[in-house]
């Protein structure tokens, strides 16, 4: 009780806990805890044999945070920036530091553009995007979609219904627009 000086009495003694729980108290001594203290100076420990790593070749202008002094010696090379999304990304990196909301909001916007650039491009390939297989939603039928959501109280049911709208909505809209455009074209041809 916080209104008086002493800690509440223990529910179970150390002996009881030791008997019930494997390893209880094995790391009671902070010396046995690997991340205590937080910083431990030991540059040799890691197995590195350099003071500063060799530099990985930069094969295209690699976008980077303006809070960095230079391009880091090692970096990832997957999916270089391309198209409109790439232009937005490069602009965001060049212009805004990580401290600016604009930096992150532009990157999020670029992500949405990137997805639609790829969806549209995929229709010109032998493997167009398929929202049914790519969302894995068919597992609802094989992995107990209904039973998993009934019988107990789950707090996420109040918003799960939004997912199909967010994911499927733009596809239905795009499909509708495509059909309308095709009809229009057909009618124009007839006249």
């Amino acid at each position, binding site marked *: 009780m916080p209104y008086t000086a002493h800690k509440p009495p223990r529910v179970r003694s150390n002996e009881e806990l030791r008997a019930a729980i494997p390893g209880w108290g094995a790391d009671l001594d902070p010396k046995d805890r690997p991340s205590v203290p937080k910083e431990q100076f030991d540059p040799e420990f890691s197995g590195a044999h350099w003071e500063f790593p*060799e530099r990985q070749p930069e094969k295209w202008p690699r976008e980077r945070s303006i*809070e960095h002094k230079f391009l880091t010696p090692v970096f990832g090379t997957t999916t270089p920036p391309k198209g409109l999304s790439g232009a937005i990304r490069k602009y965001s990196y060049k212009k805004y530091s990580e401290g600016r909301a604009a930096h992150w909001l532009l990157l999020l916007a670029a992500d949405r553009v990137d997805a639609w650039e790829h969806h549209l491009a995929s229709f010109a390939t032998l493997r167009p995007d398929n929202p049914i297989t790519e969302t894995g939603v068919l597992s609802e039928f094989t992995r107990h979609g209904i039973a998993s959501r009934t019988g*107990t109280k789950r707090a996420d049911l109040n918003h799960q219904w939004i997912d199909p709208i967010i994911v499927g909505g733009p596809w239905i809209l795009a499909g509708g627009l495509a059909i309308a455009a095709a009809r229009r074209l057909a009618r124009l041809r007839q006249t």
Partner: protein
Amino acid sequence: MRAMVYRGPYKIRVEEKDIPPIEHPNDAIVRVTRAAICGSDLHLYHGMMPDTRVGMTFGHEFIGVVEQVGSSVRNLKPGDRVMVPFNIFCGTCYFCARGLYSNCHNVNPNATAVGGIYGYSHTCGGYDGGQSEYVRVPFADVGPGLIPDWLEDEDAVLLTDALPTGYFGAQLGSIVEGDTVIVFGAGPVGLFAAKSSWLMGAGRVIVIDHLEYRLEKARTFAHAETYNFAEYDDIVVEMKKATDFLGADVVIDAVGAEADGNFLQHVTSSKFKLQAGSPIALNWAIDSVRKGGTVSVVGAYGPLFSSVKFGDAMNKGLTLRMNQCPVKRQWPRLLEHIRNGHLKPSDIVTHRIPLEHIAEGYHIFSAKLDNCIKPLVIPSAN
């Protein structure tokens, strides 16, 4: 090779990609034998993490066999079985030199506020991940560790993130003998945090979630008392009652950016991306810890702002501690605990999904179907 590829929010598929080449003399190429899907991957999958590009391969929990090494690699050779920490780190920068491997400054050009992580967007360095047949592993002399002969693959893959993160989360709590510890979240990280709290001498461990099947695991696997927050009008008051109105000495947030429990907070974060993460669990942690207590945050949040209750944290004189887990630092002690039988990480594995079916694996884990706690991914090459 076959690899999982992101196609936009909630959409992924398996594609044919080139086997990654060596790009730096200290690189290794690893053939993946087991990977896993992490709660963190869900933040990417839902499109919450800025600069997540279509075409990227996710996956930061994986083990495998060394296929090829760069010219300066000394500590590994082809054929070695390795477990690879989710952090990419150089070993010698200001931060690595002090053991802060998750905060390396030499591996992520895209951001200075976060280190390098496999398959975790360009904001974490733009590296492809291990939910594929092969993966490029930078700083092969520094990151990967040899898997001891006695250690099973499914235990090893959990040593690359989930177990060390839970163990680290308990350390951040600075638990002293007899402390009452509350863990928010009964996912893999929360379950391991609860289990680790006992190792550090907790007197009581309480786990909170809204998924009954996970709370059941918290009782059997982590020996915890449990509460389903969806059953209570106000879980914070319940926690005060449970601690004779003192509050807990230590609270661990093992939920992160997609916390449930408040429609607006969840929807503005997870669905509409107006804040970097739903701070419900974090705010509950701040409110249910005692004054002067410690809140440990291992749940992950994005780089934008979130509406965190900072005033309460300040008025209560709290210590807030947090980080991405420096995985490799945890290994020697965790291997001892596994050997001594204190921990059996693979007890939480519920699903083993062939790489070709990974889209369904993500849906099952994301929608919490089929009593899923930890899904492993099995690449087709084996």
